[in-house]
């Protein structure tokens, strides 16, 4: 594909609560066996983008670990590759990334030294499959300066945590309001953009001169009347996980057969780092209903309507309902967990109870030592 990719994965969100204390949102475990950024990276890889930069800043340890090899997404090529850019102090810069545009400004050489004519920009917190070639075709057909991939939210869903757009009959964006107090439209920006590389360099350098640092506020919103900004409306599944509720909901959606069929069975695949874990083991007395279970789990207890990520140990006489248990959690005997998200690498002692009211989600972080000597 005639484009390079940029994944903006530096951000934090207070809507993520304690879950983001541990990692950037882009590194949030997803759907049992994946991490959030896998969806953007896989879509780029499957669209034959060969050169991808990931901008990280906030709490990037888990993310860097996840990206320590590019081979899982097939970016380990002679042409291109996977680049991880964290802020560095240089002779002419002493700042962290002050915004998404600043992140690109600080790495402008990556944009300048590439030869591909287009850039695909995506965030690391979207769950979707998208052929970016289709977006690029649309972009070229519309002779657009910038194309924003948009999604029309179903009635009743809260649009105020997104950029809300108003689109004319031709698809051109007339209005763009970032995180409005009251949303008048239900079409939102997914944070995925296609733009000509030279155009992007020009806009970024301009913004830098003016000491403006945010790609949405300082470029998209300011230029919406000057530049031709078009909306490519997505009709396939898309979800943003950057709040505890949507994270829970998006994961639980994978219990639906259509979701599993779309993401797990249909071409193209979603790739992720492979961890060499043994198959899940069910011991006598275990009872699992309507749940997703990942590799490396050992189960002795009862599990219903839940998602077990990798390497979860479930003790005897345990009950887990409507919950998400993240990677490498040890759950001691006689424990009862309902409507919870249990943070990864945690140890839940025997005889513990964590129950949230239906409709509520409790994030469980216990930080116990696993092996008491």
């Amino acid at each position, binding site marked *: 594909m005639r484009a390079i990719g940029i994944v903006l994965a530096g951000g934090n969100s207070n809507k993520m609560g304690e879950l983001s204390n541990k990692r950037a949102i882009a590194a949030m475990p997803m759907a049992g066996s994946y991490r959030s950024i896998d969806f953007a990276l896989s879509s780029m890889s499957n669209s034959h983008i060969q050169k991808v930069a990931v901008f990280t800043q906030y709490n990037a340890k888990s993310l860097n670990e996840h990206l320590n090899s590019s081979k899982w997404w097939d970016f380990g090529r002679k042409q291109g590759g996977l680049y991880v850019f964290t802020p560095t102090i240089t002779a002419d810069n002493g700042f962290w990334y002050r915004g998404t545009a600043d992140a690109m400004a600080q790495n402008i050489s990556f944009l300048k030294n590439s030869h591909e004519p287009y850039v695909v920009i995506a965030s690391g917190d979207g769950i979707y499959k998208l052929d970016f070639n289709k977006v690029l075709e649309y972009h070229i057909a519309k002779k657009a300066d910038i194309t924003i991939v948009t999604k029309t939210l179903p009635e009743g869903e809260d649009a105020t945590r997104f950029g809300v757009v108003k689109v004319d009959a031709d698809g051109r964006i007339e209005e763009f309001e970032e995180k409005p107090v009251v949303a008048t439209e239900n079409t939102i920006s997914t944070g995925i953009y296609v733009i000509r590389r030279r155009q992007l360099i020009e806009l970024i350098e301009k913004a830098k001169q003016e000491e403006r640092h945010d790609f949405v506020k300082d470029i998209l919103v300011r230029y919406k009347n000057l530049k031709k900004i078009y909306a490519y409306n997505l009709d396939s599944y898309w979800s943003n996980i950057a709040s505890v509720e949507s994270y829970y909901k998006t994961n639980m959606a994978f219990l639906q057969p259509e979701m599993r069929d779309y993401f797990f069975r249909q071409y193209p695949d979603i790739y992720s780092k492979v961890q060499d874990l043994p*198959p899940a083991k069910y011991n006598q007395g275990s009872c699992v209903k309507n749940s*997703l279970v990942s590799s490396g789990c050992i189960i002795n207890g009862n599990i219903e309507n839940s998602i077990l990520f990798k390497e979860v140990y479930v003790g005897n006489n345990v009950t887990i309902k409507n919950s998400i248990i993240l990677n490498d959690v040890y759950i001691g005997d006689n424990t009862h967990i309902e409507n919870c998200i249990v943070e990864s690498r945690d140890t839940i002692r025997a005889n513990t109870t964590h129950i949230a009211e239906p409709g509520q989600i409790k994030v469980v972080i216990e930080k116990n030592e696993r092996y008491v000597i």
Partner: protein
Amino acid sequence: MIKKEMIAMLLAGGQGSRLGVLTADVAKPAVSFGGKYRIIDFPLSNCINSGVDTVGVLTQYQPLRLNTHIGIGIPWDLDRNVGGVSILPPYEKSTSSEWYTGTANAIYQNLQYMEYYNPDYVLILGGDHIYKMDYEVMLEFHKENNADITLATIPVPMEEASRFGVAITDESKRILEFEEKPAKPRSNLASMGIYIFTWSVLREALITLKDQPGCDFGKHIIPYCHERGDRVFAYEYNGYWKDVGTLGSYWESNMELIDLIPEFNLYEEFWKIYTKTDSIPPQFIAADAVIDKAIISEGAEIFGEVHNSVIGPDVYVGPGAVIRDSIIMKSSRIGAGTVVDKAIVAENVTVGENCELGIGEEVPNEMRADIYGFGLVTIGENSVIPDNVKIGKNTAISGETTADEYPNGVLESGKVIIKAGDR
């Protein structure tokens, strides 16, 4: 300069004919094991875990699955700038062209490969056992004894020793005598088919015996070296080691993985077993599913019941289906309402709805009673079994079968339907 202290040569060319239809189209080392693994994953993982990063894999019989599985060795971290894994098939030469005619002949034909790495020691491995072994410890033993050849041996119960080649040793573990399948064994140290040779000794012996027809390590090379007075030692290994050469032992060792604390534990943090992962998604267990005692791999979808079984990646078990004491390999589908009792179902098999596998009394198999025994139903890869049929014990099926091949809808115990592949 290229220098490797020890390189490994992994003999993976055998058919493993005692696995019947399971190896009709794949070499035995490529047969799946324990859900997501293949047999060759165990020696390959042992190599990298032991610090052996140069492995030649000698292939001959049906190598396609092996080749695609190994690739450039990424899963085992054997994609190296120098060394790593190399597939070594037989090749045409200017003066002669022959298949690998024996274990040692196969190694002889790859002298150049070994010479390139300039090794001090060569480790000879087979691709048909399930075990975790640190070859580095064995190498230490070899060096301490200033040995020319070290054989890995395992103590077996005296009454079973007559099934193996046994080594009779002195107190220092130097081998005095060999006995191949002795009627009255004098030792219970069975050879595991794993050898460390000092390179110069191996090279000399291979060249000297190059004209020996079907040149074999156990039959020719080691007796030759022993007779001329080389220092041959027996390294004693004490751990899990399982031959999976017959359908019975293959089934049994898979079932052992399901035990509460299995003797062969895949869940230990150290000494991981690596494999090529084709399937990443989690498995789905439906609301009406029942699972007790099982291991289930990535991407499987279980709507029915699974008892005491090993389920491979991307397997589908339909609603109302019951799987008991069975092995279902990768990407196979078990239709709704089908009951599977004590069966080995190979990869990519479709079993129709409302079938019954493993019914009736045990009757010796009419074609190969020595292969298709143990009361098992064995179904070869890519087979299709139509709806509403019943299949007895000690049976084998391979290929796309249709309802008219089952008289009155039944394949009696001891019968076979083999339509594809070698017998």
